[in-house]
């Protein structure tokens, strides 16, 4: 990567590469950034953390040339620069990898790496150069696929590597990664960390944005914490700890993050026997959840957990086996029948499956309950709808100006609260949660954990899928671990250890508690 360093120096630290001084940015009615400073050393992994709405994304968009700052200056190699466009940012060697990957899935890996900068020969695309060059960058990120492979055929984790290879191919000196692990499995994430460390060794600087404090701790040379559009604090490598980060992010101590209480288990709410899902028809799933119980489902991405929840919710009907709710055998062929049986699902993909993001908070909160609440010949009861949604907004502590706010403009945490509120309005017996805190900031996370506790206390059976180890260890009364479509083990509270979960999740055996 010497080419990427015009100064020719190979200094692995100590030199300030990029500096932001007093960056301010306002949108009509809101001050998104106020005098923010940031300093990135050469060959450093800098983590930028903060709750949603803290201003991280705005700052990164400014660095990537998506929008200009109102005030302040940006120094690159000590010289002030104007980053007027994404093109200008790329020319300066600043590359942003979005949380949602920006790849053309219908094109090959090579074509994606050189998208917009295709080498030409005689006016036509020079495919052989693309292949040769992109293979070089793929090797750099440890991605063992042919440049001819279609991007759409790769896993999300490998697609991420293509994005990084693409960034390297434009000689990126500063790589900004916005929640890169949010849709990766543990193994893929581990692989990503290896690549990031390798990049650091090559002198590339990385700005790493994540809500997963575990990885932040593992990766960071330095942590910058933001809160409400301002700098909240800096942590050097030695000072990084879970508690310190949380304290700076939320501005208060979260002494009890997971507030588990001892609860009485009730009768069996959900009993699943020999269930076969369309995705993994060769495996039979058998388990049960009692009312008042919180059961976690751990496993790697692709273990078939989401598919199992979708079958329980009637989205993809089962191929065989039986599902009993409160002892009654059910034929679940659509969400309609699942809802009628008292089952609710807060899906993994909140924006696609959980919410109609261009409708209002009120309309989303009432969407599932309409059929039940509005019995007068199908006519809407607006007064009742308003009352219920106001109740739910209060109960869920949704931060919204009013019930007529469009969902799109709420933060991820508040969106998730609306999804939960939508189902709680139905008073479900069984609540299925798929990655309930994905992409949600720390404050909202702990509120959602508290809600889960409250619901279990009131007798709801909760079955949740999580890819975050902490969340499984912290919340579950009992955990099921899945691997490649089958349940490899069940862990009681006493057996719940990181080692046991990882063993089972990768297809191994649990060790005795």
């Amino acid at each position: 990567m010497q080419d990427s360093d015009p100064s020719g120096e190979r200094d692995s630290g100590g030199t300030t590469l990029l500096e932001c001084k007093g960056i301010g940015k306002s949108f009509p009615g809101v001050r998104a950034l106020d005098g923010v400073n940031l300093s990135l050393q050469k060959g450093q992994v800098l983590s930028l953390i903060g709750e949603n709405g803290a201003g991280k994304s705005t700052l990164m968009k400014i660095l990537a040339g998506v929008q200009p700052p109102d005030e302040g200056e940006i120094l690159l190699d000590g010289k002030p620069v104007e980053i007027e466009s994404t093109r200008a940012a790329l020319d300066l060697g600043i590359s942003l990898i979005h949380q949602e990957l920006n790849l053309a899935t219908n094109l090959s890996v090579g074509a994606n790496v050189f998208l917009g900068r295709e080498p030409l020969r005689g006016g036509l695309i020079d495919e052989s150069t693309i292949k040769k060059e992109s293979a070089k960058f793929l090797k750099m990120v440890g991605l063992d696929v042919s440049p001819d492979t279609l991007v759409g055929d790769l896993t999300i984790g490998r697609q991420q590597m293509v994005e990084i290879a693409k960034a390297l191919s434009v000689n990126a000196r500063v790589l900004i990664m916005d929640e890169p692990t949010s849709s990766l499995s543990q193994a893929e994430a581990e692989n990503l960390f290896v690549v990031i460390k390798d990049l650091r060794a090559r002198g590339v600087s990385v700005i790493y944005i994540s809500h997963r404090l575990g990885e932040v701790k593992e990766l960071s040379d330095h942590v910058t914490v933001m809160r409400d559009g301002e700098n909240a604090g800096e942590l050097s490598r030695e000072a990084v700890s879970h508690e310190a980060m949380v304290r700076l992010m939320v501005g208060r101590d979260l002494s009890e993050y997971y507030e588990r209480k001892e609860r009485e288990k009730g009768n069996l709410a959900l009993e699943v026997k020999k269930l076969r899902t369309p995705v993994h028809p060769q495996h039979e799933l058998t388990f049960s959840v009692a009312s008042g119980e919180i059961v976690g489902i751990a496993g790697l991405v692709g273990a078939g957990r989401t598919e199992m929840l979708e079958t329980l919710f009637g989205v993809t009907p089962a191929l065989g086996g039986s599902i009993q709710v409160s002892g009654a055998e059910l034929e679940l062929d659509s969400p309609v029948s699942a809802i009628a049986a008292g089952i609710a699902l807060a899906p993994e993909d909140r924006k696609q499956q959980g919410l109609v993001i261009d409708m209002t908070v009120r309309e989303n909160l009432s969407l599932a309950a309409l059929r039940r609440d509005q019995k007068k010949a199908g006519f809407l009861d607006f007064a009742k709808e308003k009352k219920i949604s106001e109740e739910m907004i209060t109960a869920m502590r949704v931060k919204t100006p009013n019930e007529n706010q469009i969902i799109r403009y709420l933060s991820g945490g508040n969106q998730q609260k609306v999804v939960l509120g939508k189902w709680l309005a139905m008073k479900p017996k069984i609540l299925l949660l798929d990655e309930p805190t994905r992409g949600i900031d720390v404050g909202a996370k702990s509120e959602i954990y508290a809600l889960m506790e409250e619901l279990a206390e009131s007798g709801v059976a909760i079955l949740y899928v999580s890819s975050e180890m902490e969340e499984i260890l912290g919340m579950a009364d009992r955990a099921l671990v899945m691997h490649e479509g089958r349940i490899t083990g069940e862990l009681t509270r006493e057996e719940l250890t990181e080692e046991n979960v990882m063993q089972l999740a990768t297809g191994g055996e649990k060790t005795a508690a």
Partner: protein
Amino acid sequence: MNVKILGITLLLVGLWLFLAVQVPEGFLNGNNMFNLFLRTAMYGVLGIGVAFVIITAGIDLSIGSIVCLSGVLLSLFLSVSYDPTDREHVLEIDPQRQVIVLAEQTDRFEAGDQLRYYGSTQARSTVVTLVGVEQVVTEDDGGNSVSRSLLRVNGLNPATSKASDGFLATLFPVKGVDTEKGTVTVEGQLAGLEARDQIRFIKPRGGMEQIVVGRTESVDGNTRVSMEGDMGALDAGWLAMPLFRDQTMPIPVALLSVLGIALLLGVVHGLLVTKIHLQPFVVTLCGLLLYRGISRWLVNDRDTGYGNEYESSLSLLTNGKFELFTLGEPYGTYSIPYAFFIFILVAILAAVFLNKTIYGRYMLALGRNVEAARFSGIDTDRMTIIGYVICTVMGALGGLFFLNYSNSIAPSSHGNFFELYAIAAAVLGGCSLRGGEGSILGVVVGTALMVTLKMFINLMKISDTLEFAIIGIVILVGVVADELLKKAVARRQASKS
């Protein structure tokens, strides 16, 4: 009322004011106002229909063909024929021998009867007098022997050649005409003749009148018929041929059949879109071609319609009017067509359905995000199918309107481009082709705007070759303004939260 609808409403009112000032006599006169209401109503039902499909994030290109197909079907189902009931099939006529051979044996005719021969493609219609009847036995094509009646007559023109085919019907002499009372007395019993049947009066040496029957009564073995309509030169000595009215179907049956067929087509569209996951554009493009082709085939591509048969019933939809007031010339009488009242009723029902019922809410939700709607326990397939059904049924209602308006329709061109007018009106009125967005009031205003634009082109004496171009520009400006507006609103919203 949102900003967008306010915008096009202002544009519409502005256009009206402009026309009222520039060409007051042309624009404001009673006839033109009637037309404005009528066309808005006719195109408006199509716009409302397609709005529902657009709200489910679909499209329906088959509307114009549905308008045509339902028009053709209605004119077939409601077609009326007038035939003499006591007619006999003619096998052959031989003018040289003054002989007519009937297909079957009959003893209906007696010597001295006046008969009318008609219906052959080879020989002209003519009136003959029966001289005598014989029964003969001949062989048919298959070699079987058949008894037939052979009529010896007077009056066949010997100069004409032999002919086969046709009918023979009895004629009744007219005994007297009372032009004051509007009655005709006919010799003999015209059994079964009722109001709305007709009598064709024939003068032996040329001349013909066909008049609608009002009422019949029996007087001294003769029949006195009250006629509706001008009796013209009718006089004693003419001959009467009673014609019985035969309507293929009663009006309610015909209407329900056509609406039922449209409903079925909508269900098929919806099933193909939801169950087979075909793209709405493709499904309804095939519909556009298919229904057009079927319409042309059904009537051999001939102009079709039911003329003035339903003047006092169906045709009142578009011709009937509720009179408001009369001003002096050149403004004339102001009135509202009945079709407009139906349109307003449909619009109110549609608006209530869309905004006040859970089904409308479901459609708006699934149009925005079908997956989230399904995950909320909404039967999204069923709601989508309902959208397509509303659209085709509205197409059939439009078909009824346009058939009555046009009187006679050409199946190859009737309804061409109507789907585009409807979609344009819906888009102008605030429907987004991305789905989940739409307003019935907007569609009503959008349709009125389209109709007014056409009038504008006419009244301002702009070359009508520019019609499409002007409509295109207005829609383009409309959607551009809308998109800019939406961005501004989004920015304001984003900064609020």
